């Protein structure tokens, strides 16, 4: 499934960039380049060839050598540039999602178990604010309060654990709002089920009822939301990266788009598509851990399989 998706993505992005207005030669050579400089640039980068030839050359490099091309601007392999930045983005995403899960799931459970209480109202309105508050604004406020006024944390960069806190909180609180709402609604639905009443009737402690019987059954939609946010963040939290001057994948892509650095944009999009597919795969695997019914679909008893084969024959 992954391979056709990636080929499709590569073709779409390649044609979009090919037909989009703007000539890389103009932007990269700058304003003092003459027409002959531009021709030289186009010839050196194979931009004077027809569309399909360019696409096939590109795909040949990608498939045979795993080569995503060379950045027009830095003359470095696109793969190297992405790999150099990916750890930063991965760290930011992982920290933010971890924070978001801790906040989102715990607050979600609390407000579901105490529906319509003060805590519930408070948490739901807080999550409304979290969803609607622009990320960049929140980031700037955090900088002003914690870096400029209190001088506790550095305002920009991502080099030491102290630097990680503000960006992770900015992205994490935003993502946690979604997770919290999903946890709450999913839990509310489960709590009304008969088997919860049964569990309670059987004299089970409330903690076990909630954590084991209710939460475990409410996990599927929560995993979906967490997976989606994680995948999205791995593509780069562009605004947050810009505000905190973090050299991540998102910033790299935006800069590349500005300069019409085609190989970088193509490589970046392909890479993000690849990462997204991996995350989706992991989410699917996690489903089967959370829900035995899904697991059973893939692990048929051996005897049954043989019987099925025989039937077919």
């Amino acid at each position, binding site marked *: 499934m992954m391979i056709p998706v990636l080929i499709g993505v590569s073709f779409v992005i390649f044609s979009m960039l090919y037909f989009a207005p703007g000539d890389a030669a*103009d932007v990269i050579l700058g304003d003092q380049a*003459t027409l002959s*400089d531009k021709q*030289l640039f186009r010839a050196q980068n194979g931009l004077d060839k027809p569309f399909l030839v360019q696409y096939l050359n590109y795909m040949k490099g990608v498939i045979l050598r795993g080569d995503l091309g060379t950045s027009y601007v830095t*003359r470095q392999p696109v793969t190297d540039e992405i790999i150099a*930045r990916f750890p930063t983005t991965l760290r930011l995403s992982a920290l933010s999602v971890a924070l978001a899960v801790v906040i989102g799931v715990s607050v979600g459970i609390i407000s579901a178990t105490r529906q319509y209480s003060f805590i519930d109202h408070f948490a739901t309105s807080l999550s409304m604010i979290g969803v609607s508050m622009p990320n960049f604004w929140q980031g700037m406020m955090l900088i002003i309060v914690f870096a*400029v006024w209190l001088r506790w944390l550095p*305002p920009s960069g991502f080099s030491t654990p102290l630097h990680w806190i503000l960006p992770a909180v900015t992205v994490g609180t935003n993502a946690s709002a979604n997770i919290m709402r999903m946890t709450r609604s999913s839990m509310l639905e489960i709590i009304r089920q008969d088997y919860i009443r049964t569990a309670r009737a059987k004299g089970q402690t409330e903690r076990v009822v909630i954590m084991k019987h209710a939460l475990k059954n409410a996990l599927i939609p929560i995993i979906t939301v967490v997976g989606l946010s994680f995948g999205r963040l791995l593509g780069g939290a562009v605004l947050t990266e810009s505000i905190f*001057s973090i050299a991540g994948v998102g910033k790299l892509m935006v800069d590349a788009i500005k*300069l019409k650095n085609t190989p970088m944009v193509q490589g970046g999009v392909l890479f993000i598509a690849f990462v997204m597919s991996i995350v989706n795969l992991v989410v699917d695997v996690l489903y089967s851990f959370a829900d035995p019914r899904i697991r059973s679909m893939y692990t048929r008893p051996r005897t049954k399989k043989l019987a099925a084969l025989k039937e077919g024959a």
Partner: protein
Amino acid sequence: MRKRVLALALVMIALLAVTAGAADRKLKDTLRVATWEDLKTMDPQASNFASNWLVQLNIFDRLVYEDVEGDVHPRLATSWKYLDDLTLEFKLRNDVFFHDGGKFTAEDVLFSIKRGKANPISASTFAAFDADHSVIVDPYTIRLKFVKPYAAVFNTLSGGRGSIVSKAAVEKMGADVFARNPVGSGPYKLASWKTGTEINLVRNDKYWGEKAITKNVTYVVIPEAANRVIELETGGVDAVFDVAANDIKRVKSMKGAHILMGDSNRYMTLTFSMKDKLLSNKDVRYALSYAIDKKALVDAVYEGTATVADGMYPSTVYAFKRKGVIPFDQAKAKELLAKAGYPNGFTMNFLIENREADIRLAEIIQNMWAAVGVKVKLFTMSASTYTAQGNKYQAGMRAGNANEPSNILIIYDSAFGERLEPNDPELDKMLANAKTILDSKKRAAAYGAIQDYLYDIRYTVPLAFTPVIYALSDKVEGWTCDPLQQIEMSKVSVYQ
């Protein structure tokens, strides 16, 4: 005798005071500066961004150094003379080593110039150089040949693209590896480079000239202008490049920091497309130029930091001719429009790049033109789409930054194409001619005539000369207000 003792005592006290003072002001061994973007490459001949040269000029040396007044000083070259109009002989230093230990010779000079000619990013700058016929007389003498007399030669050689790279290193590594691992002969060498985050330079202890005062220099990449200033405020950096006009007040209110502001080579110019029937009418161009209140415009957009353009290119550039600000005269504008056959005005397209200053300038101009009946449709585009539009749109805006008239005026040249396209043979001839005049006085006169011509023909309307703005900690010394932001870090010191 007593007098002598007294004198001695005084000297002792004075000495003590001096040493005590020095102890109070201990030098830091790392200077941290905030810049607005990361380098694209460390390869000087593949660079065309100010942000690249800002760092590179500390790693690489050049043959000569041309100061703001246009005087040329020796660097890697000790002396030079013209053998004829097409031959320039340089004597080179024989005590210079590259960072990898290799010796600098005339081979490296010729190699660097050849690279410049081969790379499309610098080819137009090196167009007048004739690398194939240039001769290496001995390891420390080189005769550079030119295709035609080339007046801007010292500007080119002292500019970023004129940096001398190690031939041996480039040939060993290949250009792509070299672009990340530069080998120059400058006062600093590259210690480490974390892409998009920071660049660390360390002092070259074998530098031939005066060694750098501060041992380490770190360039921190902070794209957001406001964040650069915040880093200065919180002590994260000692100096900031490219301060936004609206952050000046903030820096001024900080304790222990100040603003350094001066003339730069940056300018904003309104361009008209000469392929357009409407704008090829000189009266229309004059009317549009009269309809803009330049002073109000520039003051509003740049909050008092920029000056209203009173010439065709920045006043800091060689042979600048002060033409005066084009007057603001709505009545005359209307009269000229009527004369041209548009008494009720017309509608035209105005294309700009989506940068804050450009947008604000354009919106105000839009209103000023509306006052004389000219309706403008504004189109805002990203840099790449902007340049791709050619002159499909009638008016455009150009932000430039260069210190050599032949580079600035290239937009009027037919070879440049797009945007203006005046295709004006007379102007082409004047431009080509001015490039070949070696006598400084005659050359200045030629550029003066070109500026007169451009002012008169009005293919463009100069709007503003914008300054270069630095924010510095009070503990930083030796920072010059360079118009191209090319700060020689070896001369900068920072105290604890």
